[in-house]
């Protein structure tokens, strides 16, 4: 049931809620590292000055990509042997035995142009963090899954692989050229159990008749966790732009919850460390809906951080401690968050 008295806030209301005035300290740091000052102010408020500097330093260090074995076609051991023979050095991801960080590469071929890649033996992820929501959402689960913002397909192909062609994955996205990339990965990796939809995620509950036990909502975000990969993000998104993104995130989360069957679980995912795109978004949806609750991760993969329970002058539910924050300076991954939401 939805609380009819509440509604999704306007962009103006969101902007007023999330507005921060940068201090002189934030302005100085922003000059040094080349950021918009409001961003640094938020890092200081979340982490304190010293840790904020650690975060900024971690964004200056490039991150090596991670490959995930397509276990339907090859074993991790065989893949490692073949890539080692080509001059790649791979490092195990302790909590994801089928994935490896590419720590050393030969001059040729690149990791995205080996024969093994073309044969579909692996998928290249920007980082291991994106494996986390899939592992948690799919823990001890077999059945249909809908990935509402699926392109370019890293999580979809991982879910499809976990389901071993026994159940379908519904992979939806709004952007056609990104769906073209997703389809190429499905063909390359010889995946047979995906249906690719081209729709606005916000409209899916109206367009689809079925309800799902597992929903993935990896929403299009500001990318504030991926600055080490995309330094342009340091200055690309103003606070007003952020308010627009936040509004869209609230809308997507609010509507995609309607795809869940009772007791079904939705993983809300962003590659952003912004509290506005995570804690604020879910808090707003919780204010509007009374048919969801936060669910604890079924397993602990590593020592991740919890979501914030307060930020600026906003208090968030204590249940937010069940949600996951991955920080670049602490976990040596991209900034990433996920929260499991259960329909009650």
């Amino acid at each position, binding site marked *: 049931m939805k609380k009819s008295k509440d509604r999704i806030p306007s962009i103006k209301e969101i902007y007023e809620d999330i507005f921060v005035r940068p201090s002189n300290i934030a302005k100085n740091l922003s000059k040094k590292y080349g950021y918009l000052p409001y961003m640094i102010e938020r890092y200081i408020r979340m982490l304190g000055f010293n840790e904020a500097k650690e975060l900024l330093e971690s964004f200056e260090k490039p991150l090596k990509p991670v490959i995930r074995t397509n276990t339907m076609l090859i074993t991790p051991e065989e893949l490692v042997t073949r890539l080692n023979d080509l001059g790649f050095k791979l490092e195990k991801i302790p909590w994801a035995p089928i994935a490896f960080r590419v720590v050393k590469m030969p001059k040729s071929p690149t990791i*995205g*142009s080996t*024969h093994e890649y*073309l*044969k579909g033996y692996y998928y290249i992820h920007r980082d291991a963090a994106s494996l986390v929501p899939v592992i948690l959402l799919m823990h001890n689960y077999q059945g249909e899954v809908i990935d509402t913002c699926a392109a370019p397909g890293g999580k979809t192909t991982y879910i499809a692989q976990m389901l071993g062609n026994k159940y379908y994955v*519904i992979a*939806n996205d709004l*952007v*056609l*050229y990104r*769906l*073209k*990339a997703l*389809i*190429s990965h*499905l*063909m*390359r990796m*010889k995946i*047979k*159990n*995906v*249906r*690719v*939809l*081209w*729709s606005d995620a916000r409209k*899916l509950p*109206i*367009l*689809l*008749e*079925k309800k799902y036990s597992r929903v993935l909502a990896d929403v299009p975000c500001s990318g504030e966790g991926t600055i080490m990969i995309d330094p342009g993000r340091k200055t690309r998104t103003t606070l007003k732009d952020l308010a627009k993104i936040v509004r869209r995130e609230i809308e997507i989360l609010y509507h995609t919850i309607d795809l869940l069957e009772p007791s079904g679980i939705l993983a809300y995912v962003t590659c952003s460390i912004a509290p506005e795109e995570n804690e604020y978004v879910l808090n707003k949806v919780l204010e509007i809906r009374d048919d969801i609750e936060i669910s604890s991760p079924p397993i602990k993969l590593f020592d991740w951080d919890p979501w914030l329970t307060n930020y600026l002058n906003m208090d968030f539910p204590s249940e937010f401690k069940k949600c996951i924050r991955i920080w670049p300076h602490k976990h040596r991954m991209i900034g990433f968050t996920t929260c499991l939401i259960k329909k009650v």
Partner: protein
Amino acid sequence: MRDHNQLDYKIGKLPYRIRSILNYYIREILQVNPTKYIGLEQYLACFDKYCFIHQGSGKFDGATLLFSGKWIGIVIGNKPYLSPLIYEEIYNDLGEFRATIIVGEKGVKNFLYGNDILPTSIIKEYEPLNTIVAIVDEKDYSVIGVAKPIGTNKKVYRNIYDIGLFLRAWS
């Protein structure tokens, strides 16, 4: 149709003529039941100049379905060719190759750059060879593309498509 990102796309049922060519090849050349491997109905998803055959498009409830299920093949110059996945499924079931050229390391590398298969690259051949053949990497016996014999002695195989298209078509 063009979307706002200026990408040409087209989806729909595979035309009867193209479906017939595909069925004939599977039944007469590979000598297996086409329905078992590609089903009764096939669909097309075209992006720019590339058209892929798969198992379902149109509507999924009220949403637009672009692609579904197995990658069955590709249409080039109005002619259909099977995907590596379908060839491999058939070869696995049969326990043997048909209309196949097994190629060594250097030949594989050249083929994946879009080049033809020369006699020096051929490790083994499986009849029939006067038709469209699957090119197989001797390293792991995976299908890496499709070719057809050319020339008077038919020992050179022209590259029709290869899995390098995943780099060329998506770069």
